[in-house]
């Protein structure tokens, strides 16, 4: 049983045609829009996204440098950064694709006998040259403490307790798990990019 499938949204039949015909070499990840009440969510998320994208075989622009660069150029918030035109991104940054992320729900929910870490986000990968949407993904993670949840709950709870116990913020590790799960999903995740050893052998969407 694959742990990845457990972390991700339900697999839908994905049309990889546009993705294949505009295969990006580089991905710019902008700081996410935040619809949750957790002010730290966008930058916690941002700190966990470079690794899965790079391990998928893409060049990932340095997220903190991009954030500082945009702020220096009069774009203080993610909302304003998301409104930068693709032609400007191409001219100034030279990215092949942009990953736009919106955080919908985030944080710790406390119940009488247990607490749950919740992360819900949606992501859209857009081709800079044409504006075509290449891929969309959603993350929906609920990690419980206490309570049952069967084997899935056990697996996730064990993971969270093992690696998050030393950290003050469980959403950081949860974000890492959710993002890695969505990006690397075998059914509807990103395709292997040009820098991956599995780039040529990826049969999805062929």
């Amino acid at each position, binding site marked *: 049983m*694959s*742990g*990845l499938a457990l*972390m991700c949204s339900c697999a839908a039949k994905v049309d990889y045609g546009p993705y294949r015909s505009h295969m990006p*070499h*580089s991905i710019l990840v902008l700081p996410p829009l935040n619809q949750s009440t957790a002010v*730290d969510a966008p*930058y*916690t998320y*941002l*700190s*966990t996204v*470079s*690794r*899965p994208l*790079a*391990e*998928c*075989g*893409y*060049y*990932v*622009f*340095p*997220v*903190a*440098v991009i954030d*500082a660069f945009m702020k220096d150029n009069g774009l203080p918030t993610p909302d304003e950064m998301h409104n930068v035109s693709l032609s400007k991104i191409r*001219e*100034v*940054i*030279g990215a*092949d694709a942009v990953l736009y992320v919106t955080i919908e729900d985030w944080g710790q929910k406390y119940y009488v006998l247990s607490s749950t870490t919740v992360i819900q986000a949606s992501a859209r990968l857009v081709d800079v040259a044409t504006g075509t949407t290449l891929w969309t993904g959603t993350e929906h993670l609920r990690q419980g403490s206490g309570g049952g949840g069967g084997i899935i709950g*056990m*697996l*996730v709870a*064990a*993971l969270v307790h*093992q*690696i998050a116990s030393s950290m003050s*913020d469980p959403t*950081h590790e949860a974000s*890492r*798990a959710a993002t*890695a*799960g969505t*990006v*690397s999903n075998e059914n509807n*995740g*990103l395709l*292997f990019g040009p*820098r*991956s*050893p*599995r780039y040529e052998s990826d049969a999805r969407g062929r």
Partner: protein
Amino acid sequence: MRGIRISLTAAALSALTGCAGKSIYYWGRYEELLYEMHAKPGTADPETQIAKLTEDIGKAHAEGKPVPPGVHAHLGYMYYQQGNLASAEQEFETEKHLFPESTVLLDGFLKRMAQK
């Protein structure tokens, strides 16, 4: 019960190591620093980051694993913040050499630095 729990954790972790299964890059503390810059202001000043990233790059070389995309550019930006433009330029050039995908962005940085 404890044994089961630990083996399940290992399975979950191995499933989360990324697209290719086996990691391409040596990640070190880059992501941890990205997190701390925002979550714990003051703990990741340029000097601390330069020390940690430089050490990680040394470890990557020692293990024969590539340094991830963005690390040399991030390090260059930390030098820039310190006012050490020569080291900043060197790191930006290294990033460009390793990852030509970064050329447009970093040539822009280098050009603006030269005008200072």
